[in-house]
Structures are given as structure tokens and as C-alpha cells.
């Protein structure tokens, strides 16, 4: 059923974008080869007849778990910002966005 997928430059760069990665020139051919092999292997799934088979996204789904709507104390801001790359004591700081809203 599924056609062999070729990881061409366009697909590779699309997957880099979706994954927010930038592969080095050494990494690229390796990833292309590995992904190609792995995808070829998982194509095995297309042989399986799954018509009318419900999807299973969670191993068990017969129990409801809720919180009741009670507000609790939040964390100290110092702790929230503790591991940040850059912060000003009140907020995290991100570099400027060229691609702004």
C-alpha cells in the first residue's frame, strides 16, 4: 500500500523545520540513509489489515482522572526562572524574533 518514501532534499529540509533542527553537512547523508532504511522497514505496517480496527493511543482508557478546581500556591518565581538561559528576575528573555507576528 504505501509507496517507498524517498528522503530528498525537500523532505529532509521539511523534517528539519518541523523538528527545529539544523543538520550539519556530515550528518545529512547519514540521516538520509538511516531514515530511508527505517521508513522502508516500518512500511511493513502497510501489509497489516487494519480495516475497522479502532486506534489505541493509550494502553488503558477505562478510568477518568480529574483534579478538583482548587487554586494552590504557585512556585516562587526565583525557582521558575532558576534554569533559564536568560532572565531579568521577572521574566524569561528570548532573543528577538525576526519572524514576528
Amino acid at each position, binding site marked *: 500500500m504505501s509507496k517507498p518514501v524517498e528522503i530528498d532534499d525537500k523532505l529532509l529540509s521539511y523534517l528539519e523545520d518541523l*523538528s527545529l*533542527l539544523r543538520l550539519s553537512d556530515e*550528518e545529512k547523508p547519514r540521516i538520509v540513509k538511516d531514515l530511508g532504511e527505517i521508513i522502508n522497514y516500518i512500511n511493513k*505496517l502497510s501489509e497489516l489489515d487494519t480495516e475497522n480496527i*479502532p486506534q489505541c493511543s493509550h*494502553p488503558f482508557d477505562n478510568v477518568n482522572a480529574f483534579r478538583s478546581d482548587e487554586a494552590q500556591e504557585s512556585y516562587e518565581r526565583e525557582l521558575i526562572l532558576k*534554569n533559564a538561559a536568560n532572565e531579568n528576575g521577572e521574566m524569561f528573555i528570548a*532573543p528577538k524574533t525576526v519572524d514576528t507576528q
Partner: protein
Amino acid sequence: MFELTALELSTAISSKQIGVEEALSAYFKSIETEDGKYNSFLSLSKEAALTKAREIQKRIDAGERISPLAGVPIAIKDNISTKDIETTCASKALSGYVPVYNATVVDKLEEAGMIVVGKLNMDEFAMGGSSETGYMGPVRNPWDSYRVAGGSSGGSAAAIAAGMVPLALGTDTGGSIRQPCSFCGTTGIKPTYGAVSRYGLIAYASSLDQIGPMGKNLEDCATLLSIISGPDEKDGTCIIEKPFEFEQSDSNSLDGMIIGIPKNYYEGGIDNSVKTSVLAAARKLEEAGARLEEFEMPLMEYMIPTYYVIACAEASSNLSRFDGLKYGHYTSDSDELSDFYRNSRSEGFGMEIKRRIMLGSFVLSSGYYDAYYKKALQARRLIKDAYDSLFQRYDMIISPVAPTTAYKIGENIDDPLKMYMGDIYTVSINLAGLPAVSLPCGFDENKLPIGFQLIGKAFSEPTLVKAGKTYQLINN
């Protein structure tokens, strides 16, 4: 002392034969002298551990019975959050990250009076089966330091096998507790999905991950599981109603138990020594009263594809938060957001992580979702249903853990697909959310340990533990 099981050590502590601090210091000494060879620890928490040891000693001296494992040292896989102790998942992407909160299991260990000694090496973000991909280098197998310890909980298994710690926590997404146990000759439990809280476990694949105990024998592991299992108001997927209780049983009889043997697991692609040892273990269980029945395991060729599609899809999303802004590694090479993101992530993640994230992005992307991700969720349903019907007939299934014993470091690292094939006996258990115990059952011709697993229906840990303990008793 390093020969003692955790429960024996705990008895020695409560009967004042040995002090908590004395035992702890001895273990630290062993780690400091031995671990250079194995690289199983990523960080130690010596000062906090010693303070805690003194506190526990006082409480024990005051006659308090804290828990069956009070005063016993334990080490924790580095993907489990420990407040004030660096938690890196063996990844450069999380280097320097010090959590501000404890995972629920860590709180439970502390309540039980156990002493956390440090954090254990692993495959980066738990993605792997050899513990070679961590950014602090590979874990080495104590039985042969040129070989891998298995993974991803390789540090946990090696630390126990080398006697550096009596108990450890590992995590199992597709075999990551069981396979290193098999490679290092230790014992472990992969609990039913939803038996142990995942709160604070840095997720690889959320619908598959479980934290479980690893130790010298099943009795220790079961005792630890009774401490860490139970519901958690912070984890809605933790559906267990109350912690496990494992009864002490004097009877070693497995009369009336039916154990299934998936005969196609023993054909092709499996080392002869593994096959022989596991089938010999089955015969021991038969001698103890169980009845063995062979059957054909369905869907075998679909298990690994299904697992990798689902695990990588979830991983690609779970690992998106590591962008360098809030915690962990960040690039020093960008003043613009988009580049900052990409550079931070590309510098932080190793090759296997990049492969899996990109595969996950691929199977979820528009145009491929139905053919891969949706299809895998349907295959998962078929696999789960297959197990359900098997457990109508069998009390448990006996299976190898891995097709081989520990291989040489570097041997498979450049062949991801070959590495994935090593997961053939373990991944379907995670897909179905089932429990399994992994026990050593012999050695191959290179004196490398071999393990087997007993798999049961959901929340049948007490039955698996009873059978496994019986095996370990009659085998001693």
C-alpha cells in the same frame, strides 16, 4: 557487605549490626574506586545522602519502623527528576539542569527512608538499547568492560552488578529495564503501565514509559515496587488503586499455573545459548508445578515497526520543549530566535535523538499520518487484543529478553536498524501496557549473563513475582 541483598542490608541496619552512615560510606567508597571502570554514575549526591543517613539512623534508633528498606542506599536513572540534583538524561541538551521539584517516586523513596546516592548513566533520553549514546560516554558491562551494559537503563544494571549500590530505579519504554538486566545478570520489574507515577520522569514516549525497580533479586525489587507504586494525584495515567502488596509465601509450588511459550520466539535470529538457557528456565518452572504450553505469537513482525512509529512520534513532541530558553544547553552562537532554537537543539541532541525526532515528525506530518501513525495505533490495538486473548488461557508467558547477550561497545552503534531488532521480545509488552519481570538464568560461552522474562496480564505483578521468586529460590 556488597554481597548483601537490600533486604539483608536493611535487616542488618535495623538490628544494629551496621549503621546507616557506615553502610552508605562503604558504598560511596566502592563507587569512587570502581566506577571509573564502568561509567555508570553521572553524578553523586554525597553530602545530602550523608545528612539523610544520619537523620534516618536517629529515627531507627528511636525505634521508628520507617519502611522495609529504610537506610538502604539507592541510585536513580538520570531521566527521573531529583530536586537540587542535576538531572540530564545523559544529554548535553539538559546539561546543568537542576530540577526544582522531585519526581513522585523520589518523594516516595525519601518517605521510605531510602538514601539517594546519585544519578545513573543511560542512553541519551532513554533512546537506545546499549547505554552508549549518553554525552558522558558509554556504560561498561561489569562482566566484560569491553561490552555494553545494555540500555537504556545500563547505568542502573551495571551499578548493581558491580556491587556499587544494592538497588536502583530504571525506566522501561521498550525494554530499557529488562534488557540491561539480562546483559548484566540483574533482576528488574517493568510494572504495568499506570502502576507507578510518571510525574517527574522526563518523558521519552509517554504512553509507553514506566519507572521500575532493578536489583539483585526479585524479592528486593518487589519490596521496592511496593514502595514506589500507587496512585498519584499528579499523574492521571497512574490508574492503580493502591500500592502493590506482595505476600510472603512459604510455598514454592506453582501448581495449577499455565505458562505459555511463544515457540516462534525461539526460531531464527536468537543466540543458541539464549534459547537453551531460557527454555531450561521454563523447565525449572515446570518442575515447580507449572504446566508449559507452546503457542504461536501473532503479529511478531509488526511489533518493532509499531513501537518505533509510536515511540518516535511521542518523542518528537516530548523533546520539543528543549529549546534552550528555559533550561539546559543553549547556543552561544545566535542573537535571533529561530537560529537560537535550531542551534541550541542541534548542539544539544546526539545523533540517535535527531534520528528519532525526525522520524517522529515524519510519521505525524500531514500526508503521512494515516499511513504510519494511525496505522501503528491500529496495530497496537491488534497487539493488545492478542495479549488479552492469550491471557485468557495463560497465567503468564515466558520469553527471552534479548536475542543475544551483551555485544561489544561500538559494534552496533552505526546500524540503528540492527539495534532496533534487539528489541523484538520486549517492545510489545510496552505497547500493551503489561508487566514483566526480567531474571537472570545462566551464562553463554563467553561467561556473559542471559536473562528471561515472565510476562503477565495487567496488574498481575504479584503472580509474576511469586513465580519469579520461586524460580530464584529453587535455582540458588
